[in-house]
């Protein structure tokens, strides 16, 4: 099976500080990979480098065999959905419905088709009761779900989730686990997390990162 994302000998710096050193990693569709490691080890930087948010110093990143350097952010966004550590950063509209529909509007999708797609996602992510709610007053768990739903409307092939279980109670964490399980036949997932129990329950592979390098890999 060909990897969907291939990282070869990649190094990345932020403000002249070398954060990631010679990373080699392959990520596959329909696989749930967990990325764990101490604070400041470079987990979030790796996620952001894969999506092109942070430029890399050297090495290569291929997304579906296309070099990342040749893709624009919107093109990456159509292939990879990136969930920020803080979902507030990617909630833009005042209501749940508008939040899910506005990106489609700017892509020129007709109103009828837009409404159909949004309704499908609202149902799939159990957001029906919140359809017209203000995004400002949603709980952390609801915001996470809304942000993932927003990513999913792009029909990405891969999801990168940065600490999605942070701030969620056990019930919401378990619901997130179920949701990711349902999504797995359609996408590949890389989740950055400290939640080892969640990783053991859901991940196929654990990659441990320390001091900017991969130090261990565990298959479950």
């Amino acid at each position, binding site marked *: 099976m060909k990897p969907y994302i291939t990282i070869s000998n990649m190094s990345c710096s932020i403000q002249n500080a070398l954060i990631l050193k010679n990373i080699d990693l392959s990520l596959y569709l329909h696989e749930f990979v967990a990325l764990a490691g101490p604070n400041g080890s470079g987990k979030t930087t790796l996620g952001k480098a894969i999506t092109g*948010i942070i430029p890399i110093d050297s090495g290569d990143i291929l997304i579906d065999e296309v070099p990342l350097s040749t893709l624009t*952010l*919107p093109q990456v966004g159509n292939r990879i959905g990136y969930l920020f550590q803080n979902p*507030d*950063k990617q909630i833009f*509209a005042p209501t749940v419905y508008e939040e899910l529909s*506005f990106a489609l509007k700017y892509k020129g999708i007709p109103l009828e088709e837009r409404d159909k797609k949004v309704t499908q996602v609202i149902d799939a992510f159990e957001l029906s009761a919140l359809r017209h709610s203000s995004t*400002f007053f949603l709980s952390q768990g609801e915001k996470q779900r809304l942000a993932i739903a927003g990513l999913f409307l792009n029909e990405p092939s891969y999801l990168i989730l940065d600490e999605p279980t942070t701030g969620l109670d056990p019930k919401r964490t378990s619901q997130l686990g179920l949701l990711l399980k349902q999504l797995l036949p359609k996408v590949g997932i890389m989740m950055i997390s400290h939640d080892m129990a969640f990783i053991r329950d859901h991940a196929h592979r654990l990659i441990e990162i320390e001091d900017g390098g991969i130090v261990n890999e565990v298959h479950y």
Partner: protein
Amino acid sequence: MKSTIDPRVKLLIIICLSTLGLFFSDIKILMLVFLIGLILSILFKGSFFSLLKRIRMIFYVFLVMVILQSIFQQSGTPYLTIGTLSILTDEGLLRAAGYLMRVLIILISGVIIATCDMRRMIQGLIQMGLPYDFAFMTSIGIRFLPLMLTEMKDTLTAIQLRGIDIKKLPVKQRIDLLSYILTPVVASTLTKAKKLSLSVECRGFRAYNHRTSIITLKLSPWDYVVVATTLFATAGIFYLGISL
């Protein structure tokens, strides 16, 4: 130099620079004021050039200004014309250069004041008679501005990652999209302000009418020299500008 110059002296310097920048329209005087500001910012270890790098966009504004000034200011020798319409004239170029110089003077003033330690700056304002509440609000505003800019940048990235190619959108849609960029920034600012207000109240902010301070600023002989030089130089430039 950063720690030796009193923030009130730096405040005086930027007041003089910006007053000269706004008072005169002669390009030579404006260039002189900017040059003095640039030298001072280098002496104070300010980061003017890295600021310029971050605001490269201003040069596009300059180009637009040159064209607009030339179109609306039809006097002067035309360098470039389309039909009877002058697109580039020497007069327009001079006016646009003057505009750019004024903007650069304001920016250099900002760079000079940014070299002050914020705590000392607030103390300076308080000792100049500004009520503590206002000084505190000013410092919060200054501290939060870069954070807001970072959030704005993150929001733009997040919007693009939703598959929206902003560069390809028509102007009307780009303007329309602004509300989606500003919503999370405003929401986050309100949340931060609410948390900050609660946090300072919990730490006894405004619990008493009078506040004591561990820092007290005192002007050194060197500060007096800089004040005298600044006032003398400002008066000199005023004289030069008026007699030109």
